[in-house]
């Protein structure tokens, strides 16, 4: 069976805060979810950054279910762009990356970016004094 992992930003309309959407995703569609970041304010639009892991067909159904409930779903796979050629390995970005995507190699002291671990928190965008990170809002997949 083909299990896929996707990072998706969900944007909720203001009145949907109390619907047990994630419960449905887990129970009805067998999607494993991991909440990477949540910004939910009662009565306002909220957003969630989720990592979803499931069979492709179930994932598609889950997303269709969310969209049917007015939740915007934006895939996130290509979100942070890194211009590695110009990197001077100063380390500033590693200070803020708690996902462990940006680390200093303990032998060479060069900065290493492991895209797989990125949770798109965006802290590195402002932390890099050379401005080498960009947020890319194009849909990834």
């Amino acid at each position, binding site marked *: 069976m083909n299990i896929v992992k996707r990072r998706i930003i969900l944007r909720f309309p203001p009145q949907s805060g109390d619907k047990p959407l994630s419960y449905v995703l887990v129970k009805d569609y067998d999607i494993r979810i991991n909440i990477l970041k949540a910004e939910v304010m009662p009565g306002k639009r909220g957003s969630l950054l989720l990592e979803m892991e499931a069979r492709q067909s179930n994932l598609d159904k889950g997303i269709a279910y969310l969209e049917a409930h007015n939740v915007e779903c934006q895939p996130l796979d290509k979100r942070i762009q890194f211009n590695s050629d110009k990197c001077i390995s100063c380390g500033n970005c590693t200070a803020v990356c708690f996902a462990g995507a940006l680390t200093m190699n303990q032998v060479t*002291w060069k900065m290493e970016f492991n895209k797989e671990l990125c949770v798109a928190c965006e802290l590195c965008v402002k932390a890099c004094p050379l401005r080498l990170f960009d947020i890319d809002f194009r849909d990834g997949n």
Partner: protein
Amino acid sequence: MAKEKSYQEINEKIKKGEAVVLTAEEVAQLAKTCTPEEIVEKVDVVTTATFGAMCSSGVFINFGHADPPIRMEKIRLNGVPAYGGLAAVDTYLGATSVNSNNPEYGGAHVMQELIEGKDIILEAWGKGTDCYPRKHIRTVINKNTINEMILFNPRNAYQNYNVAVNTTSKIKYTYMGTLLPNMRNATYSTAGELSPLINDPEFKTIGVGTRIFIGGTTGYVAWPGTQFHTTKPKDENGVPITNAATLAVIGNMKEMSSAFLQAAYYEKYGVSLFVGIGIPIPVLNVEIAKRVSINNSQITTTVLDYGSPGQPKLGYVTYEQLRSGEIEVNGQKVRTAPVASLAKARTIAALLKEMIEKGDFLLQEPIQMFPTGTSLKGLAEIEITE
């Protein structure tokens, strides 16, 4: 009788291609199995280096005279203000000066673009005088059209520097990087055992006139740097445990490379310039051999709270601890990150080593030693009655 070597002897060896040169990291390794006496015998020169953001940097430029000539009193380079209080077509452009329409672009960026051979828009104004009748000029310059560009940095290469943390509940954007709330990170900037002024803490070989690697070319130590402080607390190895002495350095910016001079912008702080400096230390005697043998576990620095007024002191750590990725502050484990490039500093130390080995770089004995017993003054606010 312990061995003593002179600059002349070492330079003769360099010219013959016989000098033994190690980087400060290599000599710190060697010192684990060799005594200082053996190191004086074996090693002639130790190369040290640093590559970090050094805000107190800038460049003197002479633009050449236009026809009719102008006495430039207000000067903009790509919109960045340069000093207009020097004779007609001389200026000093500071790295931290910024374009008011785009505060993320400043003197450091203009410097980098000049080095890279890019065109820069020069706009200048003067009141018009009998000998300099012109009042305004707007033109394009680049490194080939101007007469001189002389890098002169009044305060570089800090001897040791603090570790920054933030104990408050708000994120702080500083020149020490982004400091997360509640001490969720700690940043440090010194190259530890590779850092120039840590390997010669009492300035026995570094002084006015010392030949150095700066920004990709050969330059000189011009003077003790501003805020030159030699009486800060020291550890048992005689190395200051916080930021202390500094260097004023000079070099021909036309010969420099943006691989070693890099503009930077720090969020909510401003523009700065990463400067690459390499300094050779001649191993003249046992005392100097001992100094250059120092390793990261023997170098201590102070942890300061950059989030609170007065930056209270929170403790001490060694560079070995900082490099391990985690330190302990007030009983809390804090993740560490550098904010200066050790990888680049290593490149510089290795390059300088190669230049000396090949006979392309001779050592210059200081023509004047640095002062001792210096400290800092604050700035008093005195009421002015008119």
